[in-house]
């Protein structure tokens, strides 16, 4: 961004050219050229589309005796990443969970962070305690047709530097003057452009997770370099 700022500073040299002669040579006139540099402020736009491909939904649960299926809140191109009913102790992969698109003119590129606004919130019934750690339960990996429930993946973390906005972070995370934790980085791109990247989610249910419905909001934040 500094490069952009450097390129785009507006210098009103003409004003100085007319003012300085009055100081040192008040009785003379002067002519000259003005060099004007201008700045194009960097901009970043981003969108996230859940369930972004027609074959979205959960697979896995090997050995659980049941076949996973997306819950009713999952709809193509929107809605919720809804794993439906899953069995404790097993592992699942949700294909084509979310696609992040970024448009920026920042020549230095951008970084995308993804983290939970909260831990997993239990409801129906409300367990004790009411939350379950997001870390080591929900994971992310770049979408690929060959992904399985056992593919290498990185864990989502609950935010440590921001404050959830709205109920359970339904409106995002407020970082104030700060930024997401570097550990939450999911994508770094070194140049400008109009780019997209899709992500699958993995769910690994520890044997001690309570029987309940769990929800969490995953917040994506894009910051220019």
């Amino acid at each position, binding site marked *: *961004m*500094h490069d952009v*700022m450097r390129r785009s*500073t507006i210098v009103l040299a003409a004003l*100085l*050219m007319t003012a*300085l002669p009055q100081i*040192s*040579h008040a009785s003379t006139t*002067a002519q000259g050229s003005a*060099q004007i*540099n201008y700045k194009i402020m960097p*901009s*970043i*736009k*981003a969108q*996230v589309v*859940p369930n972004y491909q027609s074959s979205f939904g959960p697979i896995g649960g*090997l*050995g659980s*005796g049941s076949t996973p299926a997306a*819950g009713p*809140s999952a709809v193509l191109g929107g809605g*919720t*990443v*809804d*794993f*439906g*009913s*899953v*069995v*404790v*102790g*097993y*592992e699942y992969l949700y294909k084509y*969970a979310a696609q992040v698109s*970024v448009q920026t003119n920042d020549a230095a590129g951008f970084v995308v962070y993804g983290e939970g606004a909260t831990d997993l919130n239990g409801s129906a019934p409300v367990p004790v305690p009411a939350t379950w750690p997001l870390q080591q339960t929900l994971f992310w990996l770049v979408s690929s047709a060959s992904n399985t429930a*056992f593919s*290498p*993946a990185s*864990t989502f973390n609950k935010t440590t530097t921001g404050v959830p906005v709205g109920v359970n972070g*339904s*409106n*995002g995370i407020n970082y104030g003057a700060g*930024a997401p934790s570097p550990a939450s980085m999911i994508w770094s791109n070194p140049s400008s452009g109009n780019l997209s990247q899709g992500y699958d989610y993995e769910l*690994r*249910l*520890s*044997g001690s997770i*309570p*029987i*309940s419905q769990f*929800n969490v*909001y*995953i*917040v*994506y*934040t894009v*910051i*220019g370099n």
Partner: protein
Amino acid sequence: MKRNIFALFALAALAVLTVTSQADALQAQKAFKEMTITVTVTPSPVPMGFVKPSPVAPPPASAVAEVTRLLADPFDGPARVAFAGAVYDVAPGGGMQVAQVSAQPTPVPVQFVAKADPSAAFLHIVPHTPAVSVPYGTTVLPCAFEVFTFYTNTYSLSDWGYGTLKTGAPPTFPIENFPTVSYLSWAVPDFGPTFKPYNNSGPPGETTWTGAKNQSQQHCIDLTIVVPNSQSAGIYTATVQYNLYVTLP
């Protein structure tokens, strides 16, 4: 008399064959579970040292003379202005802080309904170290997880690297595939301190432990992982399949 002896031997042989074949036939897989551990291989530290900086070249004589002249008489010569060329971010005399541009799209809601595992009463895993960052070399993970087993008849617990086969499966770090030896080894400290590389030939795998009728047991599994120098830094998963085979009544 001789006929009776032959008949007796034949009967004994038949009895032995019957028992052994029944033992094989009555074994059944009651449940199986996968245990996945995320392994992050961290890069080796890069050797560092301090190097004496090169001597700075003196400024050109013309620049020195120009500065000296301007210091002596700042208004001498043609009028000059300061301007923001390639040297400055902002005009001299002031500074400003520019916030990084950012965007935060609408969050993605995620949900699931956790249901009870009907086979957990016979076999379940209690993870303690589901993810670990390891350097190059050998790392020991004491009680990385625990395995619980129970059945109303005699049983055995076996394991093998998930997705491995005797031949043909692609080797993946750290469990690899036969004949490459697994870089991940296990031990049950309740039974002994010896570590053994995970079986990576697929079924029937190796016996983890056996149990008597109505015996419930839960033991820690210690792990060691070896990261060879040839392995790239990155994120890997090790998945082990545990199988409960029970003797049917």
